[in-house]
């Protein structure tokens, strides 16, 4: 058979040989292609191998962050004001949801939230890998939590994440000074590039929370997990426990703070209390407060708009950002300048008929009927405008400004909080620069009684009061007492810092202090409302005109529209013979200083001395 076949299909040797030559060419082609493969293999595995090792590692190793509990915030007595609590967030894992539309619809019903809000959130994470969870809703309440936990089988893709979040144990007290947390933004991420932040982390956005972020945030823990392509955990490779943040002790006394804020309830304004001999702040209250709870998990648009449009401006920290004409509290400056510059002696008597003519204008005293003959003591006690018009006129506006600045007006106090305003202590040069006009002598009269261009913050007025009664030392307002690690090791103790000294002699300051004591304690004094039973209190009231409207001149205070009413000031100190504490109260549109602000200063002082008495009883039973 095979013989038969071969006889049919003859082989032409010449032709076979050409074919065989072509086999050589084919071999060369094969060698060429295989060489390509070998070069490619060398390129991938040897030349670029390390890059691919990294890529394969990042494929398989998933780093899970363990958020550190933030440090606590304590008051000067060691009471914890702000701690942490677990907050439950809803996270979404795209890969786990084969039918996302139905699940999200259900979720929107559970959360009582419009589906478009949820979808927007998901769209924001469109670039996120499918297995990576991201937050849909933060800090859900326990009812929602239980519902979702019970129905998790119907909600594929929905997971619950537990994170430590701020617990405002006492509510909204000291809200401006403490500040709030919110999700870190791109700009902050870039700013803290050296620190360990990830998108979605909480970061202090204001106040102490922001300023001391570095200490409060602690150190994140990390879990290195090996995962498969579905993100399913295969094994734990390595882990590092989170380190809680450091505790901050404030100089604030939370009892005094709550007393002050409670007394101010319903009013817009500020209360500042300071240890006069150290500059430590015991109270720094701005009302109405911000609602810190609402910031957890991102403040809603409506809540934010409501705060923004509230006529009482809860978002403004009035203690350092509110600038008001200091009113009669400024007479302390005028008195000091007059005494020191020899414009008068304590015994110089000026007659007050209820008004004073200067230029062709009539400058009225607040008391239309006049005070009659007044010396320094009575002028301060009864806040006689005519007296201070004349003193101011004698020393001139630039001198007044020098004394004002030596008491801390018109300059930033140096408190650590952000966005502090400097206020204004006008001078000739200032006016030329600002308005391109020379100073008018008549304007000096307004300045001398704390009106005109004068502007000051409540913190500045408090600091001025402290410096006036402590012998002239100007302290930087101090907010922080110490920083302690979670193990209890004190890593930072803050000491008082002196930033300047009041111009003028000790004698002048003492004279003023005595007169201020009379303001509260003597008959006809304007500050009687702040008087305490056992403790001698000194102080000065002020009424800052918002606007000159003759229309409302004789109208009863209650009948004037709110926004046109005067601001009420009182700044006081106690005990007057050896002052420890200075308290300044400003009530926006509160009317007369003595009657509106005085009682608030009084309760703060009462609380302070009650606390002190209680402490004394405890140590000496």
């Amino acid at each position, binding site marked *: *058979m*095979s*013989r038969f*076949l*071969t006889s049919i*299909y003859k*082989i*032409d040797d010449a*032709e*076979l040989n*050409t*074919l*065989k030559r*072509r*086999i050589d060419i*084919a*071999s060369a082609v*094969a*060698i060429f*292609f*295989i060489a*390509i*493969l*070998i070069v*490619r*293999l*060398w390129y*991938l*595995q*040897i030349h*670029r*191998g*390390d*890059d*691919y*090792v990294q*890529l*394969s*590692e990042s*494929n*398989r190793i998933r780093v899970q962050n363990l958020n550190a509990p933030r440090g606590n915030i304590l008051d000067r007595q060691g009471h914890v004001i702000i701690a942490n609590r677990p907050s439950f967030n809803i996270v979404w894992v795209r890969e786990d949801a084969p039918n996302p539309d139905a699940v999200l619809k259900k979720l929107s019903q559970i959360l009582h939230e419009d589906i478009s809000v949820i979808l927007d959130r998901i769209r924001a994470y469109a670039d996120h*890998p*499918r297995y990576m969870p991201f937050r849909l809703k933060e800090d859900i309440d326990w009812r929602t939590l239980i519902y979702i936990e019970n129905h998790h089988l119907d909600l594929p893709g929905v997971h619950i994440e537990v994170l430590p979040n701020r617990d405002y144990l006492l509510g909204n007290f000291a809200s401006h000074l403490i500040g709030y947390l919110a999700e870190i933004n791109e700009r902050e991420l870039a700013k803290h590039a050296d620190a360990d932040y990830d998108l979605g982390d909480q970061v202090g956005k204001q106040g102490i929370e922001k300023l001391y972020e570095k200490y409060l945030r602690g150190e994140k823990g990390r879990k290195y997990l*090996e*995962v*498969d*392509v*579905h993100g399913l955990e*295969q094994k734990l490779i390595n882990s590092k426990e989170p380190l809680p943040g450091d505790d901050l002790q404030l100089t604030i006394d939370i009892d005094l703070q709550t007393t002050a804020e409670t007394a101010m309830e319903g009013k817009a304004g500020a209360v500042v209390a300071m240890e006069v001999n150290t500059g430590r702040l015991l109270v720094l209250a701005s009302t109405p407060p911000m609602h810190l709870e609402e910031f957890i998990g991102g403040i809603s648009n409506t809540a934010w708009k409501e705060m923004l449009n509230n006529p009482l401006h809860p978002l403004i920290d009035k203690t350092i950002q509110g600038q008001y004409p200091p009113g009669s509290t400024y007479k302390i400056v005028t008195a000091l300048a007059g005494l020191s510059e020899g414009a008068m002696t304590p015994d110089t008597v000026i007659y007050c008929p209820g008004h004073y003519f200067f230029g062709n204008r009539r400058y009225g005293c607040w008391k239309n009927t006049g005070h009659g003959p007044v010396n320094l003591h009575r002028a301060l006690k009864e806040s006689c405008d005519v007296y201070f018009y004349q003193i101011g006129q004698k020393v001139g506006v630039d001198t007044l400004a020098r004394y004002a600045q030596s008491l801390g007006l018109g300059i930033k106090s140096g408190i650590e909080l952000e966005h502090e305003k400097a206020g204004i202590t006008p001078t000739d040069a200032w006016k030329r620069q600002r308005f391109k006009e020379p100073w008018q002598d008549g304007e000096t009269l307004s300045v001398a009684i704390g009106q005109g261009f004068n502007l000051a913050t409540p913190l500045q007025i408090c600091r001025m009061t402290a410096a006036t009664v402590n012998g002239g030392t100007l302290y930087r307002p101090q907010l922080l007492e110490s920083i302690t690690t979670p193990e209890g090791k004190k890593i930072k103790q803050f000491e008082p810092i002196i930033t300047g000294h009041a111009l003028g002699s000790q004698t002048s300051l003492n004279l003023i202090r005595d007169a201020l004591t009379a303001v509260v304690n003597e008959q006809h004094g304007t500050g009687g409302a702040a008087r305490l039973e056992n403790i001698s209190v000194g102080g000065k009231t002020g009424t800052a005109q918002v606007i000159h409207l003759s229309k409302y001149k004789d109208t009863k205070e209650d009948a004037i529209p709110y926004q046109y009413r005067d601001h009420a000031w009182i700044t006081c100190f106690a005990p007057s013979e050896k002052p420890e504490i200075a308290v300044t109260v400003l009530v926006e549109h509160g009317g007369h200083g003595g009657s509106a602000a005085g009682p608030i200063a009084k309760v703060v002082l009462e609380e302070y001395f009650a606390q002190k008495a209680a402490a004394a009883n405890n140590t000496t039973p």
Partner: protein
Amino acid sequence: MFRFDRRLLLNFDWVLLLTVLLITIMGLTNLYSASHSGRMLGTPVYMKQLYFFLVGFGLILAIISIDYKVLLSWNYPFYVISILLLLFSLFFGRSVANTQRWINFGFFYLQPSEPAKLALVITLASYYYRKDTGKGFTLKELTVPILLALLPFLLIVKQPDLGTALMLLFVFVSMTLFVKLRWQTLAILATTCLSAIPIGWKFFLKPYQRQRIETFLNPEGDPLNTGYHIMQSKIAVGSGLKFGKGFMHGTQGQLDFLPERHTDFAFSVWAEEWGFFGSIILLGCYFFMILWGLNIAVTSRDKFGVLLAFGIVSLIFWQAFINLAMVMGLLPVVGMPLPLFSYGGSSLMTTMIGIGILMNIRMRRYMAGS
């Protein structure tokens, strides 16, 4: 014809068998690792592959006992059967991911495009053997082989299985160039093919196929979808470094990042776990097998043997090259197994039959003209 010559046994091609065994053992080892993560049910794939190999080995024994020249008379029946199988699969086949590639034989799913490749090789070898005048083919003379190749090509494109269809094209071109072409013919064919590319792009390619090619040309454009396979495969190969991550320790493979890791991307698993060293050994085996196969063609006693051996070698070579180039990111992703190494009964069996024919030719090299 059925008489068994003693010389046959003496001339048995142990070298080729050893090379095939070596590749198969590496392939089975690799399948064991690739299928280890245990999401697959039933008989493990490496066991199934082993059964297929044993059946294939039986086929080799059967094939070598018959002189390959019978193929000269059986080529058209083979061809017709392969076309019928393709037609059958197109109309009654099992549909997997919108492609009609499989015929259910109860114990085995046949992928008829695999034997079709071999049938085309045999048919073309027979045709060229009979018609070659040594002066080179004219276009007119090429009409029949072109039609012979075009029919299965179109049927496979219709399935659609671009990889296998391209393979038919490669084999056809290789074999046609191997026999002689006239200059004019070559010029006309080349022009026609080049102008056919845009038409094919528009009318023949499915959107996913077009996307694969686009992704290949710009892999960063869409890293999580189509480019994902290429990227993950390159990561697997590249991270193997010199000596690999170790057997069963490849993270890309074990943790599921590699797609199709027991079929088309089996080499990526190998390269990841055995590194440059292991990959070169495997490549070397293929290289040796190809050269050995070409040597079988060279030493063949007749022109039919030369053509047949060359056709089979080119079939194995192009499959291996395209698969390896694809998993290393040199070519776009097409469905293309690595012969003897990737899991798949139809492919393994077809390759084994091809190897059997090669051995057959080898054994009978001294029997010419006697």
